[in-house]
């Protein structure tokens, strides 16, 4: 039997190549995602373990803040460092200066490393990591010595276009709010973390100790933390224990393992999100691939009915027949999965480039196939293929031996009645689930709707021969009106095997359902944002960092001087733990001018906090049971908790935080003053030219500072829409692969159909169908299939998208339907249909008329 399978595989290699391609792409995507994510985690693990010392002495309570980069002003003196070093368990103690809020500009004054990965600025110390190796390695030049010297990580310097000896422009955090906003430093060294694993997109800015102290600590000879290296034979726990004797006030000692674990778990959350995000698309691609495989095998089995019947007549058992089909599928899967893994390596590199463009650069060397990835690829590839081929194989085994004698080889399709009945019931059930989500059944609404959507999509795929029939009939009518007989024949062909057409179109439908649902959500998100901005944006201009960072107060100082500026309100977002919370929350500190710009709706008490007071949002008040006069404890890293009195409760608004305090609270907690948002109003009644002139002047101030942007209402709304769109395009891009797989499915079905209709095509050619019109006929059939998939998918996605918006209406207040996009998707689907038909059409038109007629 094996030989027979092998022969049959070889004989059909062209036909199978296409379904193999579906496996290759699906597994390729999966393998790529797995490889990329394991590479990403290898990178982070390497960096974390390679850059952590035996123990760390840091401001108490830093743990929860560290991952998000909140700063503290607590310091350690050199004497205290020396005291730690003097302990017998301590081999060496190195005072570190960790700087926050520093930005590096490239020679064109653009930010280096904008992608969200942090800029890590610190002093160079030769302290070793847990493994006893140096944490940092020099790739070129030397370590900085003078105050105005700096070393950068090699990748950042390359990206920015800096070479050794160049002057590097940086924006210091601006401690005192005075002085020049930018500084120039000489690049004397290129460095990287030990082991060359890269920096995962972070920018390393390395100073001499004096330089770092001058830059971040106002020149005081102090440190922000201390790294400890254990003496020989001393464990990390013993080291931490011993350090307890010499701890500076407000500081704690933690083991390197603990620090690494904290960092791992902080990164793990982010990595987990990326895994799920990418994994979702990989799973979709694999499912779509499964549809294609199932369809291909169905067609192949249908076309081989005679051969299979002959086998049965010659004495092959049902089991043998079924096994031979499954064996064929298994061999296809092995080949496909293997090629898929190779493709996956390439795709992982592509993903690395994509993420690199968002600032998360990872070294290509870590993108290798792990045993787990290889195993997963083969298991999924074989599993999905065998599962998909099972039904066709079962059908094959049911072929009666007598079919060998029958004239017509095509088995008639069974009625779709039962399938439709079951399908309708399932559609109703799906509607029930989705409905439960909309009316707010217990549990997560979106989850209910999601469950309903999955049921819908799968059911729609199963009964697509029925659901899609109106589309097919419509297409046939239009095509026969426009293209005459050719169009009519194409429409008939698409209608001839409803299951085949349905299964082929379903693969496309899945992708387009997601595309259109996501499109509805994105459009609604953009519309909701627009409305929100319209309602809430009361300032003439907003000054913010496009990278959501903070900027020196000097900028606000200069802007306040601009002629025509009437009010300038400052806000600083800070992370703090509220009440007994473990996790920090973003709270907002603002000045009194804030109340002059924004008209907040006060529920109770005052709109603006006075000294030692806070104004909380209504939600926060309900959640935490607060009323005017209650006290609230705010925790900041490295400082004693600050108690504030609730002075007022305001309606929730995006311009204020859940907790709003005055700058005095930050001062008390020792939080460094920077700004995160400036709201600027011109004098009331200013002409639009005047307003424009003010904006020009404000722009002038930040012209060389890419960390700050001045936006009016429209620009602000546009910038948010642009962010939504960027995400949308990424999602579209990732969905594109499953659409490509679906297109391959169309190619496959068409090729097989063309082959099956060889005689018919020969006859048409004999009675006068020209080659171009034959090609057009195949193309129109293809377009019909893709139209069916597109129409079903877009309609389903539209419904699902609207339901999701309904359930999320608290955040997505506006419903917007992206009609233009939907029309574009429809047009693109038609285009895909045309593209899918190119090969089969050429093949059909190349058929020799005589041979076609002679074909058995």
């Amino acid at each position, binding site marked *: 039997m094996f030989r027979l399978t092998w022969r049959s595989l070889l004989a059909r290699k062209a036909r199978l190549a296409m379904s193999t391609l579906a496996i290759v792409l699906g597994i390729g995507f999966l393998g790529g995602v797995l490889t990329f994510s394991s590479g990403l985690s290898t990178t982070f693990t390497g960096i974390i373990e390679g850059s952590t010392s035996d123990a760390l002495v840091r401001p108490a309570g830093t743990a929860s803040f560290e991952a998000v980069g909140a700063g503290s002003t607590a310091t350690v003196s050199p004497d205290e460092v020396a005291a730690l070093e003097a302990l017998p368990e301590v081999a060496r103690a190195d005072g570190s200066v960790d700087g926050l809020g520093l930005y590096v500009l490239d020679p064109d004054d653009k930010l280096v490393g904008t992608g969200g990965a942090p800029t890590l600025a610190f002093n160079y110390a030769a302290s070793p990591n847990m493994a006893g190796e140096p944490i940092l390695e020099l790739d070129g030049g030397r370590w900085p010595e003078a105050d105005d010297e700096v070393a950068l990580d090699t990748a950042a310097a390359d990206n920015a276009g800096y070479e050794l000896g160049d002057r590097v422009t940086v924006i210091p955090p601006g401690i005192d709010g005075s002085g020049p906003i930018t500084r120039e430093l000489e690049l004397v060294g290129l460095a990287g973390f030990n082991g060359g694993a890269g920096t995962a997109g972070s920018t390393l800015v390395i100073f001499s100790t004096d330089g770092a102290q001058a830059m971040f600590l106002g020149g005081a000879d102090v440190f922000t933390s201390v790294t400890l290296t254990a003496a020989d034979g001393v464990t990390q726990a013993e080291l931490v224990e011993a350090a307890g004797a010499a701890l500076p006030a407000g500081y704690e000692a933690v083991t390197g393992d603990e620090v690494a674990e904290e960092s791992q778990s902080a990164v793990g959350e982010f990595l987990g999100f990326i895994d799920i995000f990418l994994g979702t698309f990989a799973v979709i691609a694999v499912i779509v691939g499964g549809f294609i495989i199932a369809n291909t095998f169905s067609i192949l089995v249908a076309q081989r009915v005679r051969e299979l019947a002959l086998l049965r007549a010659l004495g092959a058992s049902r089991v043998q027949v079924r096994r031979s089909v499954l064996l064929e599928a298994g061999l296809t899967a092995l080949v496909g999965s293997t090629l898929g893994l190779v493709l996956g390596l390439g795709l992982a590199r592509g993903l690395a480039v994509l993420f690199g463009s968002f600032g998360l650069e990872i070294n290509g060397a870590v993108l290798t196939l792990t045993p787990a990835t290889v195993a997963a690829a083969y298991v999924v590839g074989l599993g999905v293929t065998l599962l998909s081929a099972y039904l066709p194989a079962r059908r094959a085994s049911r072929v009666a031996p007598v079919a060998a004698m029958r004239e017509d080889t095509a088995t008639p399709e069974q009625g779709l009645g039962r399938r439709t009945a079951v399908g309708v019931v399932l559609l109703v059930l799906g509607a029930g689930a989705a409905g439960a989500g909309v009316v707010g059944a217990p549990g997560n609404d979106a989850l209910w709707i999601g469950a309903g959507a999955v049921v819908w999509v799968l059911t729609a795929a199963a009964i697509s021969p029925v659901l899609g029939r109106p589309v097919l009939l419509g297409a046939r009518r239009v095509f026969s009106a426009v293209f005459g007989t050719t169009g009519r024949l194409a429409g*008939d062909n698409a209608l*001839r095997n409803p299951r085949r057409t349905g299964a082929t179109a379903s693969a496309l439908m899945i992708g387009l359902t997601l595309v259109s649902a996501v499109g509805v959500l994105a459009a609604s998100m953009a519309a909701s944002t627009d409305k929100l901005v319209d309602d809430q944006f009361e300032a003439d201009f907003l000054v913010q960092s496009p990278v959501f960072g903070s900027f020196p107060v000097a900028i606000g100082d200069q802007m306040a001087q601009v002629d025509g500026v009437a009010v300038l309100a400052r806000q600083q977002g800070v992370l703090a733990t509220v009440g007994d919370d473990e996790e920090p929350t973003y709270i907002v500190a603002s000045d009194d001018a804030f109340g002059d710009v924004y008209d907040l709706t006060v529920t109770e008490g005052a709109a603006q906090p006075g000294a030692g007071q806070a104004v909380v949002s209504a939600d926060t008040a309900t959640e935490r049971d607060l009323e005017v006069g209650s006290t609230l404890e705010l925790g900041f890293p490295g400082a004693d908790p600050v108690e504030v009195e609730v002075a007022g409760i305001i309606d929730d608004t995006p311009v204020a935080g859940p907790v709003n305090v005055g700058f005095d609270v930050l001062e008390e907690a020792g939080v460094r003053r920077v700004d995160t948002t400036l709201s600027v109003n011109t004098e009331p009644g200013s002409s639009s030219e005047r307003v424009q002139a003010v904006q020009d002047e404000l722009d002038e101030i930040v012209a060389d500072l890419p960390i700050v942007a001045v936006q009016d209402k429209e620009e602000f709304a546009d910038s948010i829409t642009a962010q939504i769109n960027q995400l949308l395009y990424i999602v579209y891009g990732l969905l594109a692969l499953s659409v490509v797989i679906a297109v391959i499915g169309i190619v496959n079905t068409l090729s097989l159909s063309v082959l099956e209709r060889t005689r018919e095509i020969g006859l048409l050619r004999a*009675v006068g169908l*020209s080659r171009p*019109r034959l090609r057009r006929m195949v193309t129109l059939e293809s377009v019909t299939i893709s139209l069916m998939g597109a129409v079903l998918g877009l309609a389903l996605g539209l419904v699902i998208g609207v339901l999701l918006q309904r359930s999320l209406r608290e955040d997505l207040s506006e419903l917007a339907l992206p009609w233009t996009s939907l029309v574009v998707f429809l047009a693109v689907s038609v285009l895909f249909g045309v593209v899918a038909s190119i090969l089969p059409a050429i093949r059909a038109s190349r058929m020799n008329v005589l041979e076609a*007629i*002679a074909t058995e």
Partner: protein
Amino acid sequence: MRTPAPRCQTRSMPETSTPEPRTAPRTEPAASARALTKVYGADQAQVRALDGVDVDLQRGEFTAIMGPSGSGKSTLMHCLAALDTPTSGEVVVDGTALGGLKDKDLTTLRREKVGFVFQAFNLIPTLTARENILLPLDLAGRKPDQEWFDEVVDAVGLRPRLGHRPSEMSGGQQQRVACARALVSRPAIVFADEPTGNLDSTSSAEVLGFLRRSVDELAQTVVMVTHDPVAASYTDRILFLADGRIVDELREPDRESVLERMGRLQTPAVPPQAG
């Protein structure tokens, strides 16, 4: 049940005469071939399917081509019908020389001047009988001549079946639909390759009777390949092929004379049929 038909023979030795100039369309043959050779394969495996065939097929005549299996009957027909290109030699269909014509022109020629009936699988399964009959006209974008359509449909006796699909018709009915399709565009010549090969004697008689009538009453030109002496006896003239050459000719045949001539050619009386 054969009606003797008027036989318009305008020439006595058509095989040896040179092609008539195009200025004499009345007497010009519907199709003719000169020194037609078709070679399949190369070197040792070479087969000369046609070996210098000269033939003229006169208008308004019903011609049969007979010969043992593998003698080149189908090949000859395919070459004459612009379905295949000969290795050498010349084919003229209704005054048009086929040599050097592009695929596009050959397609048009087939559509306008040639009709076909194959042994099996003549119809497009998705189309009704009426649509199948009108297919060549539809493809050509031509309006059917309603009178002629009615005449043809009535001649094949298919009027009640026009709305049926091929799967709802018997083999004989399907072949008659195919005949009607071959005739509906008033082609210069109709080629039928064993049109009754798959039919029982009653259905065969229906189809053959129709082809005969189309020659007698509708003044069409029909060429038919057959192995069946009874089928051949419906025709005006039989060409005998052997090893790619025309070896004999019989006019106004009947069953006995066909059998006798076939015997003389030392071939099995009823050779096994081949598609």
